[in-house]
């Protein structure tokens, strides 16, 4: 059994969260604090409420626990987890943006930004996903059309 170090995070409300170090270093900000030796007692995260912090920890845990493999099933599972994760009310979404921006979790930030962008455009994430799927199909049609075109020119 490998030795697993834990890290204590203290949030805005003074509540403490004990998490494994492997989970805690997912956010780059915390990773840098640990590297700089600021993590001896507990890491203060004054900008983050407990509701948001537990959501962030839930996200980091899921990403750490999912094996980093090329397996389609694992990837799809993680993707649907992330999709569900950002299906929050607008208030939570904006709290998450500020927290994620502070903690510097890039991957999830990208997804949240895209979600807000889709909201501004008036589309749901599902509709956008469908658009991207259609675009992938366009290419395969293009290949076919191109071949036919060249065939006809050959005559």
């Amino acid at each position, binding site marked *: 059994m490998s030795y697993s170090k834990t890290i204590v995070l203290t949030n805005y409300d003074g509540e403490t969260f004990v998490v494994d170090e492997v989970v805690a270093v997912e956010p780059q900000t915390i990773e840098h604090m640990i590297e700089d030796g600021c993590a001896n007692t507990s890491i203060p995260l004054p900008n983050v409420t407990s509701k948001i912090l537990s959501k962030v920890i839930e996200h980091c845990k899921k990403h750490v626990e999912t094996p980093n493999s090329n397996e389609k099933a694992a990837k799809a599972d993680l993707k649907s987890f992330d999709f569900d994760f950002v299906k929050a009310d607008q*208030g939570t979404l904006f709290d998450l943006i500020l927290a994620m921006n502070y903690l510097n979790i890039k991957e999830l930030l990208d997804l949240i930004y895209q979600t807000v*962008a889709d909201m501004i455009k008036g589309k749901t994430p599902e509709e956008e996903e469908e658009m991207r799927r259609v675009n992938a*199909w366009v290419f395969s*049609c*293009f290949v076919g059309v*191109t*071949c036919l075109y060249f065939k006809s020119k050959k005559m």
Partner: protein
Amino acid sequence: MSSTSENVDDRLSMLPEDILSRILSLMPTKYAVGTSVLSKRWRYTWTSVTNLDFDYTRRSPNMITLKFVDGNEEKFTKFVDRVLKFCKTSHLKSFRLHISSSGVSQSSILNWIDNAVRLNVRELDVCVIQSELPLSLFTCKTLTDLRLEPSDCDLKRWEFPSTIYLPCLKTLDIFLCDNPLAIQGCCPVLESLSLNVSCYVEQDFILNIPTLKRLNLLCISIYDDDNRKIILRLPKLEYLFVDGELCSLFEMEDVSSLVEASISCSACSFDFMWADILNKLRGVQKLTIANVSLFFFK
């Protein structure tokens, strides 16, 4: 207005400027610019976007771009001109220009792409009817991703100029190009390449790019008795995808780093070509083979 909805509105407006510009960068530019009418706070927010995305296409029900003219070309041209004039970024992350209207002038399109190059564009995605491109594009020092696609079924072909130097280019997708081999030696860090092999000359197609990791070939046969060979000198190649028609013999000099290969080609009159390519791909970790009929597309 109720206090809750007021709060919700405020939350978005209260986000820091850099976050908003990132969010506005993730949508087609017309939506981003559209936010300028929301309030004074939003008036100039869009000008710090780092991605520009202009789409003036029409598509058939099966999503193939159609050539059209609808009379709004002048408006579109003015819009793009103004966006490029007011856009504050000096480091454009991506520039996407898809146009299938034949009413947009060639000179405007050349000018826009040239502007993107001046703004140090990194990812450029162009799908237009014309086949001319500004020369500045081919010596762009910042470009990492380039995608060139003809927009309609006239399928005019691109042609590379004699001077090319793209020092940062990692990904190149080019469909229908007269001289795709011209890029050899001009892109020192190229890792991913998609192109068509549709030669009009009866010469072997020799691809020699020492840095290439991913290759997507679209093969189109012109002559039924095609004796040309496709010769790949790609020592670092990890992924190979072949589409279209299997019509030439492959010669691969070193496939030791190949991880995955996918050959999905239409039925070929010569079974020995299948046998040949399968033989060459022995030892690859993951192999996908599909015999696709082109009749599906008719």
